[in-house]
C-alpha cells in the first residue's frame, strides 16, 4: 500500500510580470488501488499540479508538502521521484531527436528497476508491451516522440506506464487528441496497469469522456488553484451536464 499525500500545496510560476500564484492550497490523498479524477476548467491549475508532483523546474513550491509513504517528495530531484514510484503521463510528451524509443525505454527501465534487464527477456517484454498498446514494433527504432501523432505519443506514455509500473500514476489530459479507438486502447492500457499493479491513479481531465472507460472512485473539482468540491463518480455526470460555470463564477 502506498499513498501520496499533498497538503496545503502552494506553487507559483515565474512570469514576465513577476511570480504568479497558480496552486493555492491543494490538499489531496492518492492511495493504492484507487482511482481519482481531477476535473476542472482550462487554466484552473490542474496541469500545474501534475508538473509540481513530477518536479518540473518551471514551478516553485512556496508552501505545503508532498509525501510518498511519509517521505518528502519535494526535496527529491525529478528522476528520484520517478525512481521512488511516481509517474506522470504528460499532456504533451516531448520529442527527443536522435534518441531511439528502444534506447530510451531500456535506459528508463534500467534506472527505475535499478538494474539492466537481461537483453533477451527485455526484447520480449518490450515487444509485448508494444503489442498490448497496438503500437507497431517499428516504433522501437524511431526517435522518441519525433514525428509521432498525438495518439501515438499518448500510447507511448501508457506503454511506459506499463513498463515502469509506478506506485502512483498521474495522467495529465491523456484523453486529449485521441479518437475513440485510440481512447479505448489507451484506457485499456491504464486499466490493465491498475489491475495488475494495484497502483493509485490520478486522472486529470477536462472532459468526462475518459471516465467512461476508466472508472474513478473519487472525483475532485479543481478551480482557481484548489479543490473546490469532492464527490463520487456521479459528480462527473453532473459536471458533464452542467459544466464548470458555477465553479468559475464564484470568484468576485
Amino acid at each position, binding site marked *: 500500500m502506498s499513498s501520496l499525500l499533498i497538503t496545503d500545496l502552494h506553487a507559483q510560476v515565474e512570469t514576465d510580470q513577476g511570480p504568479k500564484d497558480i496552486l493555492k492550497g491543494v490538499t489531496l490523498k492518492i492511495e493504492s488501488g484507487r482511482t481519482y479524477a481531477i476535473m476542472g476548467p482550462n487554466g484552473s491549475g490542474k496541469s500545474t499540479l501534475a508538473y509540481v508532483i513530477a518536479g518540473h523546474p518551471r514551478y516553485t513550491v512556496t508552501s505545503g508538502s508532498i509525501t510518498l509513504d511519509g517521505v518528502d517528495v519535494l526535496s527529491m530531484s*525529478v528522476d528520484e521521484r520517478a525512481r521512488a514510484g511516481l509517474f506522470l503521463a504528460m499532456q504533451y510528451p516531448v520529442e527527443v531527436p*536522435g534518441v531511439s524509443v528502444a534506447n530510451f525505454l531500456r535506459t528508463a527501465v534500467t534506472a527505475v528497476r535499478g538494474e539492466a534487464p537481461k537483453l533477451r527477456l527485455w526484447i520480449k517484454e518490450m515487444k509485448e508491451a508494444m503489442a498490448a498498446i497496438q503500437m507497431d514494433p517499428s516504433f522501437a527504432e524511431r526517435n522518441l516522440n519525433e514525428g509521432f501523432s498525438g495518439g501515438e505519443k499518448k500510447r507511448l506514455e501508457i506503454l511506459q506506464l506499463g513498463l515502469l509500473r509506478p506506485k502512483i500514476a498521474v495522467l495529465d489530459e491523456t484523453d486529449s487528441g485521441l479518437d475513440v479507438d485510440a481512447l479505448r486502447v489507451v484506457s485499456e492500457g491504464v486499466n490493465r496497469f491498475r489491475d495488475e499493479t494495484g497502483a493509485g491513479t490520478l486522472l486529470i481531465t477536462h472532459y468526462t469522456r475518459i471516465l467512461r472507460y476508466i472508472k474513478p472512485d473519487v472525483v475532485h473539482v479543481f478551480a482557481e488553484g484548489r479543490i473546490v468540491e469532492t464527490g463520487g463518480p456521479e459528480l462527473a455526470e453532473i459536471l458533464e451536464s452542467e459544466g464548470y460555470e458555477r465553479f468559475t463564477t464564484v470568484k468576485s
Partner: protein
Amino acid sequence: MSLAVVVPPVDLAPRTRSYEPEAFIEPTARDEEWKFSAFNRLKHFFVPDPNAGVVRASGDGVQMRPITSIASSWIPTDMAAAVARANVREGGVLEIPAQAEIIEPIVVDLTTSSAQAYQHLEIVAGSFSSAVVVIRQTLTSEISGSTVITVGDHARLTVITIIEGEKSTALVLQLPVTLGRDAQFTGALAAIGGGAVRIQNSVTYAAPGGSAELLGVFLADTGQHIEQRIFVNHDQPHCKSNVMFKGALLNAEARSVWIGDVLVRKEAIGTDTHQVNRNLLLSDGARADSVPNLELETGDIVKAGHASATGRFDDEQVFYLQSRGIPLDVARQLVVRGFFAEVLGRVGNVEWREELLSKISSRLGIESFGDSDE
C-alpha cells in the same frame, strides 16, 4: 553566448594561389578570413620554423615520400598553407588504384614527435575505385599543413578524419577535395580535441556530376577554439553538395566558429546544394559563431538552401527523460548524443560511426550508459 554574425557575401575575386609564402600578404587579426580565429595562437604559422619536423603518415599502402616527388594539383591559398607547403620535407601518399573496391577501411595515423611540424598528406582515389579512409590524428604539438584529396572519375571515397589531443596544441589544416566526373565523396570531420584548431575544408569539381557530402561534428571545451571553414565551389553543371556540421560547446570560454561558403557559378546549372550548421550551448559564456553564405550566380539549379541555428540545452527534453527515472547526467548525455546522431547517422560505415559516438560520449564524461539496442 552565441552571436548571429552578418558578414558581406563571399569575395568572388579569385584568391591568391601560390607555393611561395612571399606571394601572400601576412594576415592580421582584423582580416575577414582570420577575424574569427584564435589568431594569437596561430599567427606563428605565418613564419617558417627552421626546426620544424614532419608529420608522418602510416597505414596500409601509405608511403612517405620527398615532397618534391609528390604531384599535387592543389596550390596553397593562404600564407600559413604556403609556409607549410614550402617547408614540409616529406609527405604521405595514399593511392587507391583505379577500379579497386576496398571493403575494409584504410586507417592512416598521423604522428609527429616535433614541437612543431608541417604536414602534407595526399589521398588519390583512382577512377571507379571505392574505399573508406580513416585519418586519425591525436595532436601533441603545433601542426600546420594539408590533407589533399582527389576523387577520380566515378570513384566513391569516404574519408573520416578524427582530430583529438591536448588543449595546449594547435592545428591549421587545409583540406581541399577535388571531385572528378560523377565522383562521390563523403567527408566526416570529427574535431573532438585539440586546442586552437582551424580547418579549411574546400570542395571543387573537376567535371560534371560530382556529389560531395561534408559531415562534421565538433566539441569545444574551455580553452578550445575550434574553427571550421567550408568552401564549396560549384563551377561544374549537375553537381551536388550537402554540408551538415554540428557542434557542442561544453563549458564557459569554449569557442567555435563555423563559416560555410557555397558559391554556385554561372556555369553550374543543375546544382543541388544544402548546408546546415547547428550548435548546442551547454554552458553560459560559451560562444559559437555560425556564418552560412550562399551565393548564386545562376537560377538554373535544382535547389539551394542553408540554415544555421545555435541553441541552449532543451530543458523540456531533459525533464522528460528525468521524469522517467533517468539521472540528470545520463539525460543530458542522451540529448547531446541524440543531437549528434543526426549527422553521424549519415556516416555509412557502422563500425566507425559507433567509434565516433563513443569518443564523443567519453569526451562528454560518461563512458557508456545502457547498451546500444541497435
